């Protein structure tokens, strides 16, 4: 009886092993992957046809706030440079806007806080599946882009960040539809307080119709570009390059 059970279970293991090594080969096959990933642009187009370009992400009230807003990804950037900024209360932090712009900017935190602000209570959705609701305050990205006067060749914005993953600096990118969206802000406060280090101090991107990994933290530079091909591996972001996450993270 035990012999038969063992035989059956080893047969089952062998069969499922064969099946799964087959599955893993399919998963790694470039033709299959390119077919499967083609759904990403289909999803983006469909979602943008269904929804208005400026359709707002749902906003909530103070009663809906998560008691604790979970931090994820880099909790604290490494390196003496960031430490020095933290020590000085980010007095010397600059946000640079350059690339395909007519008027490059280099703004201090104080200048950014003096600009018109938008406060919104929104839901942050991690690609892993969890959500947290927080109140963000920051300058609408549109105002920075208007001030720097984008050139007509600009198609995307790349957000260069101060946190490193191993030797690689984090970066993310969005297109101009999301860049000019009224809820897209460069946030400097969470729940009425200065942005905590775990949530991207002193500046982070909020692009509310996409998932968490698009919300670049520790932003130092916004570069307007015509194509994403020349940054990193060309897929538009750290997780896109390193793990094949979708560049369009609306779902």
């Amino acid at each position, binding site marked *: 009886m035990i012999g038969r059970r063992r035989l059956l279970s080893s047969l089952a293991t062998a069969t*499922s*092993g064969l099946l*799964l090594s087959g*599955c*893993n080969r399919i*998963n790694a096959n470039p033709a299959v*992957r390119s*077919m*499967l*990933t*083609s*759904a*990403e642009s*289909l*999803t983006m187009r469909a*979602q943008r046809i*269904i*929804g*208005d370009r400026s*359709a*707002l*992400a*749902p906003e*909530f009230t103070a009663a*809906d706030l*998560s*008691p*604790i807003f*979970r931090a994820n990804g880099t909790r604290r950037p490494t390196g003496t440079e960031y430490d020095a900024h933290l020590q000085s209360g980010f007095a010397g932090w600059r946000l640079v806007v350059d690339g395909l712009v007519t008027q490059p900017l280099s703004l201090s935190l104080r200048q950014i806080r003096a600009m018109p602000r938008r406060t919104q209570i929104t*839901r942050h*959705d*991690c*690609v*892993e*599946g*969890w*959500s*947290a*609701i927080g109140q963000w305050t920051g300058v609408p990205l549109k105002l920075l882009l208007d001030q720097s006067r984008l050139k007509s060749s600009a198609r995307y914005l790349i957000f260069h960040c101060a946190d490193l993953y191993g030797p690689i600096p984090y970066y993310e990118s969005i297109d101009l539809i999301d860049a000019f969206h009224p809820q897209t802000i460069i946030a400097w406060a969470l729940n009425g307080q200065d942005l905590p280090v775990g949530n991207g101090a002193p500046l982070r991107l909020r692009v*509310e*119709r*996409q*998932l968490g990994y698009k919300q670049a933290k520790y932003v130092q530079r916004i570069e307007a570009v015509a194509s994403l091909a020349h940054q990193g591996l060309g897929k538009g972001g750290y*997780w896109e390059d390193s*793990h*094949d*996450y*979708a560049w369009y993270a*609306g*779902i």
Partner: protein
Amino acid sequence: MSGESAVANTAARALRGGDLVYRHRLPTRLWHWVNALTLFVMLMSGMMIFNAHPRLYWGEYGANPDRAWLEIGSRGSAGLLRVGSLQVETTGVLGVWRDRDGVVRRKAFPWWATIPSSYSLADARIWHFFFAWVLAVASTAYWLWSIANGHFRRDLLPQRSELAPGHIWHDIRDHARLNFPRGAAALNYNILQKLAYLSVLFGLLPAMILSGLTMSPAMNAAWPWLLDLFGGRQSARSIHFICAFGFVLFIGVHLVMVLLAGPLNEVRSMVTGRFRLPEENAA
């Protein structure tokens, strides 16, 4: 004798056990096999996505500091499943298990249940969202086709008499005794089949697709009513998971019924469309 002529020959007289009949039209058969593949991929890639955050919540938000109503995790060397305040040890299957190389892993669902078999949220999402399109497009086409040609009304909508409690009870008793319809009676779906298929077609399937869309932040901006429908994004995620469990149950019962009713005949009817009516019992 070929299947074609067998069907032709039986057209002139009343059908009886042993006759070969045309039971499933091409769209139904195509949809069935597309679904078989699609659900297999969706369930397995879905379990990998769940592994990225093996906790479920009710409401708009929910993350590690918040109370989860369902959680798969581990303590020490024990795998644990917790639902509400009920906790069961699941070592070896959920929470803690060994992979193909015998290495102990601490993820919710084991390697043999997920696509891909080693942890990758990014790859699972690629599979899930491609096949989500297949499922949504194929389901919509099937719904429209079956409404237009009367398949739903003719074959699936229960007659008033079938809904009588006595009739349903009679069917349940027959099923429990593995006493299935024979002869011409086997041509029609019985009331339990009708109810099962209708609840999948108009309950489970739309709930699955809509709760999936509700998890998309871009869809929340486009169709904010989705959040009201499900009571928040995390509720939608929980309902999505419960629907997946419903599909597993449906597929399990479906496969058992196919085995009990005669697997070769049943599979043939879903491949070629032709079904041999079971012989009547000798009275």
